């Protein structure tokens, strides 16, 4: 069984804020890479224990989230995919899709470091009216290819989001945020800080939980049937993205559509997104 594991960063236990932990120049970026790599190793160990023969780890954090010297040596590391390179390298040879370090979509409540896309600008993104974040977009792409999503670890809001999106998915919740409002009225820089409140499991407890749930998830994969683990949408496809004001550039809406091909729609770059600039916002 081949597992495609998408490694995020913001949903890792012990990863505390956006400023110091996420960017390459952040003071704790290397610590964040260690924490993420340990959680990925825990998931991989669970998958191998459940019969996985191949685990491809897609490092989906820009510039990078994984430390290959620390990675479980049974894993293959996939590095260098652009954010709009859909469907990443997921294909029909993958038996299961999994996420580690997943964060919730922009506008989530009681979420930690929630956002959608590579910036903190997006207020909400929908595909055919279904509100999705970076988890949901990848799930939609995989579902279009018939690849089931079986496991998600991250903060509580990301796990809820996965459960709302997918029947039969197994989750592992490693922290929970406490910010009660969607925060639509805040600018990008403030929005990033707004959602930095959370209560974390210790990294060792988080890894133990992830290992156990990942193993259970893959053990249950063969029993999934029908649309379990899948979220399919019918054509035509419409993507609508609302974004907030940033760097004195106004808020706005992007709308893109495709009559028949969801993946082609996802590949349309969000080129009308105003430039995020450097001072406010910052990269996720």
């Amino acid at each position, binding site marked *: 069984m081949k597992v495609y594991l998408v490694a995020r960063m913001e949903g890792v236990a012990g990863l505390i804020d956006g400023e110091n932990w996420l960017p*390459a120049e952040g003071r704790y970026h290397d610590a964040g890479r260690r924490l993420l790599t340990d959680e990925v190793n825990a998931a991989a160990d669970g998958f191998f224990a459940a019969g996985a023969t191949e685990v*491809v780890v897609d490092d989906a954090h820009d*510039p*990078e989230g994984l430390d*290959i*010297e620390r*990675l*479980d*040596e*049974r*894993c*293959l*590391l*996939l*590095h*260098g*995919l652009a954010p709009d*390179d859909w469907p990443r*390298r997921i294909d029909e040879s993958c038996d299961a899709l999994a996420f580690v370090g997943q964060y919730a979509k922009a506008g989530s409540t009681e979420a930690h470091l929630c956002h959608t896309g590579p910036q903190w600008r997006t207020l909400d993104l929908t595909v055919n009216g279904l509100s999705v974040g970076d988890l949901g977009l990848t799930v939609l792409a995989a579902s279009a290819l018939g690849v089931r999503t079986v496991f998600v670890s991250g903060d509580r809001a990301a796990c809820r989001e996965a459960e709302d999106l997918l029947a039969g998915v197994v989750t592992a919740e490693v922290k929970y945020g406490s910010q009660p409002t969607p925060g639509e009225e805040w600018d990008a820089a403030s929005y990033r800080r707004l959602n930095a409140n959370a209560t974390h499991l210790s990294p060792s407890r988080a890894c133990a939980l992830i290992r156990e749930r990942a193993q259970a998830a893959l053990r249950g994969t063969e029993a999934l049937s029908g649309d379990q683990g899948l979220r399919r949408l019918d054509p035509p496809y419409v993507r609508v993205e609302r974004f907030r004001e940033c760097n004195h550039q106004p808020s706005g809406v992007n709308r893109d559509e495709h009559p028949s091909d969801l993946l082609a729609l996802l590949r349309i770059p969000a080129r009308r997104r105003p430039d995020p600039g450097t001072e406010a916002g910052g990269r996720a």
Partner: protein
Amino acid sequence: MKVYMITDVEGVAGVVNWREFGRPTHRHYECCRRLTTGEINAAVDGLFAGGATEVLVDDAHGRGGIDPELLDPRALYLRKASLPKEGDRRMRMMDESFDALTFVGQHPKSGTEYGHLCHTGSFSSLEVRVNGVAVGEFGARALCANELGVATVFLSGDQAACREAEDLFPGIVTAAVKYGLTPGTGDELGPEAYATRNETAIHFHPRRARALIREGAQQAMERLAAEPGFGRIDFPPPYRRVERLRATDAAPVRETVREHPTSLIPLCGA
């Protein structure tokens, strides 16, 4: 058996790009040196196990890619500060006293489809041909060694670099430690855009990569001892080397031609 090893970093598993790994000022440069030296040590170990009595490790990465403190103490470590001047080119520090040439961490030549971090010398080069045969860093150096009677027996790098070696030296032992995922050649790009074009790849873990390399290096030495002519090809003079440089904002594609009646080494012994 005396073995010469040319090492580079772009073909090492875990070296995911040049812009963060390639130079001392880059944030992952120390990691790059650890990963590279680890693969070199695996090769050195395999070579000795296969019958080598001396291994000279030539650090051929632009700014250096080896941590000498981590290097297998049985290896000799060569670091040349700069290349000799035009007209006095040598095949690095190689001579006829060597029995075999090996490569570790090799990347493919410029323009290779599904290659990882491909380039030839720098990202400015579009194509180098010798007597009509497209060659990269591997090809130029292996052909020079061939002229000296030194057999080219082993290469590790990404899968495309391994294919490149097998195409020029059929039967050479290779160890592929990663797989590039970018289709197309990128021939239309200038040096800067090309430098970041081929960064997508699937990497083996360093320990898996080292196991493959050790096994391959040992096998290469055993075959060298057992098979007459192994690692040698027929590539007769005279020689004509044509290099084309990528177009830039300032200049279109440029071509330089060098010829020599008897030896390749003055043309591409770098």
